[in-house]
């Protein structure tokens, strides 16, 4: 030490605090000061910009009437070629007579089987199609980011043991956890909202420059807002899953490992061994939460028949994810509240 140490001059105890104590302010400062959090968000933003740039440069573009006419010509040719092949098949004398011809040669090519856009080198960016699809994609990205943020937020506190030091300042453990969870939920919701707004703005610009902003089908905006609202819910729930898992195992790396193992291995094993249990799997319920209408799972029939279909609603997806998150977070908080800390 290089300086003389002198005792603090009063006031003492509570009188020394002249600002309003705020655990929430400390938590916001803590999470926003984390380099990992900043780098993660910057990398995500850079990845987004790159993705949009590549898509704008290679996938989308306004088309001239000549290009559309040429694409329509290629579409007609493809339909005609498919029909010629079907007729040849039907005329084939070697075709098995005891099997219906549709099963051997296929059905007649229906109108609308192909889209003109499939025959264009660069498709116009159609707001009515791309905006909702992109909103679901953004939800997936923010869900993964939120899981990482939730896991690292509390995991770093355990690995540095700053969680214990915090209790010298706020000994009410449940309150400490509640504030952390509140900050995480608000942060995850903010992340999802910003991502959805960013995508909305990007899509509007791309549609006006590389495609078309209209016409929009009826009920477009309510459907879009519903999907974006569910994106926020999904992001918040995955952040809670990451937080809860990391709080249970008290290590970010272990939490991420468990999460990866679950999604990449356990869920696939369950799908193959117990297909009917898919309705309880996290990834299926995340898809159900984000799907337009019911999310359908085709279950094989054990007798070799056509099997049956399971339809999972948005509500089902939300409730299952929410229930799992509540259990994981709840058990972690309970253990934190009761256990001795060293």
């Amino acid at each position: 030490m290089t300086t003389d140490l002198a005792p603090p001059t009063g006031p003492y105890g509570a009188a020394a605090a002249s600002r309003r104590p705020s655990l929430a302010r400390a938590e916001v400062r803590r999470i926003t000061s984390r380099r990992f959090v900043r780098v993660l968000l910057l990398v995500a933003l850079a990845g987004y910009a790159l993705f949009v740039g590549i898509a704008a440069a290679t996938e989308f573009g306004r088309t001239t009437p000549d290009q559309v006419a040429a694409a329509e010509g290629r579409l007609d040719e493809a339909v005609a070629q498919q029909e010629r092949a079907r007729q040849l098949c039907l005329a084939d004398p070697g075709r098995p007579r005891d099997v219906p011809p549709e099963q051997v040669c296929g059905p007649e090519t229906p109108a609308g089987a192909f889209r003109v856009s499939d025959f264009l080198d660069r498709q116009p960016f159609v707001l009515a199609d791309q905006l909702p699809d992109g909103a679901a994609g953004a939800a997936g990205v923010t869900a993964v980011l939120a899981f990482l943020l939730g896991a690292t937020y509390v995991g770093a506190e355990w690995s540095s043991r700053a969680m214990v030091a915090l209790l010298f300042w706020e000994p009410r453990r449940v309150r400490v956890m509640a504030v952390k969870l509140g900050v995480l939920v608000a942060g995850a919701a903010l992340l999802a909202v910003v991502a959805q707004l960013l995508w909305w703005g990007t899509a509007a610009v791309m549609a006006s420059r590389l495609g078309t902003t209209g016409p929009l089908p009826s009920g477009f905006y309510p459907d879009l807002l519903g999907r974006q609202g569910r994106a926020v819910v999904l992001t918040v729930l995955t952040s809670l899953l990451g937080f809860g898992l990391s709080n249970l195992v008290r290590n970010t790396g272990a939490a991420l490992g468990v999460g990866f193992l679950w999604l990449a291995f356990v869920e696939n094993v369950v799908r193959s061994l117990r297909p009917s249990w898919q309705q309880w799997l996290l990834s299926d319920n995340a898809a159900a939460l984000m799907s337009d209408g019911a999310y359908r799972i085709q279950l094989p029939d054990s007798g070799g028949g056509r099997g049956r279909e399971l339809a999972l609603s948005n509500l089902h997806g939300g409730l299952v994810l929410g229930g799992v998150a509540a259990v994981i977070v709840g058990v972690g908080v309970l253990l934190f509240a009761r256990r001795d800390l060293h």
Partner: protein
Amino acid sequence: MTLRTGVWHGAGTATYGAHMTVIEVAGAHKSYRRRGKAPEKALDGLDLVVATGGVHGFLGPNGSGKTTTIRILLGLVRADAGELRLLGQPVPQALPQVIGGVGALVETPLFFPAFSGRLNLRLLADTAGVTATRVEECLELVGLRDRADDRFRGYSLGMKQRLGIAAALLKSPRLLVLDEPSNGLDPAGIREVRELVRRLGSDGSTTVFLSSHLLAEIEQVRDAVSILARGRCVATGPVSQVLAGGAAGDLRVRVPDQRRAAHALTAAGFTVSEVDGALQVHGADDPADVVRALVAQDLYLTELSPVTADLESVFLDLTRQQP
């Protein structure tokens, strides 16, 4: 040697005479469960009273229960049994009400390694509503202001410890709990912490509860001391009283034939050891008994003097005696 536990709590009250207390522990028990093994007893009926003001040394060998006691007082660990009070309030129940007056450094400082020293303190300051000015004061106080923007992970052990002390001082606490605060400090740092502890203890507003296994650290700054062994307080009180108790009955004896003298004294029922070329007779209530035993064997004294115990010998005696 027999030192009664709790020199100062003969009356069994929650005060030291006219003094109010900052820490009171009565009959605290704590065992840690261990998988596949018998539970480990950390506290075994601990009684402890720390009066307001000054520096109270909390001394004990490693594993004697010092840190467990502090953790229980700060609400990190639950006692299996016993009553505890901090700043006059029962804990852990009233801990949220009293924690604002308690600063603590328990073992190693716990901070975010990637954050700067200043940011780590500001996070804690936000939690308690302490001003940024106070953060700077505390950084200045421990000599870290110039390095405050460096990352905590880059600090030396001593700097980390000093930041921990700065954090403990942020609240300008009425009770400052320091658990092994000299860990990792160089000799100059140890001396300065000792000075700080001394000054804090004499400012009339702060009570410093200084836990250490380093006798020298405690000996130079303490006003009172409690000695722990195997989860029990084996001596407590003002240092002068503890030392007097530790020396009670010990005599230094020199005679021309020390071997014969040792036999004679042992035969007379005394416990004798050889220290620095002289015989040390333990537990002699009356020096005349020693003289009588030696003269009966035609052994004549060249020296007979009472032994003044230092804290180290008291500490070693007390902690060795425990079953």
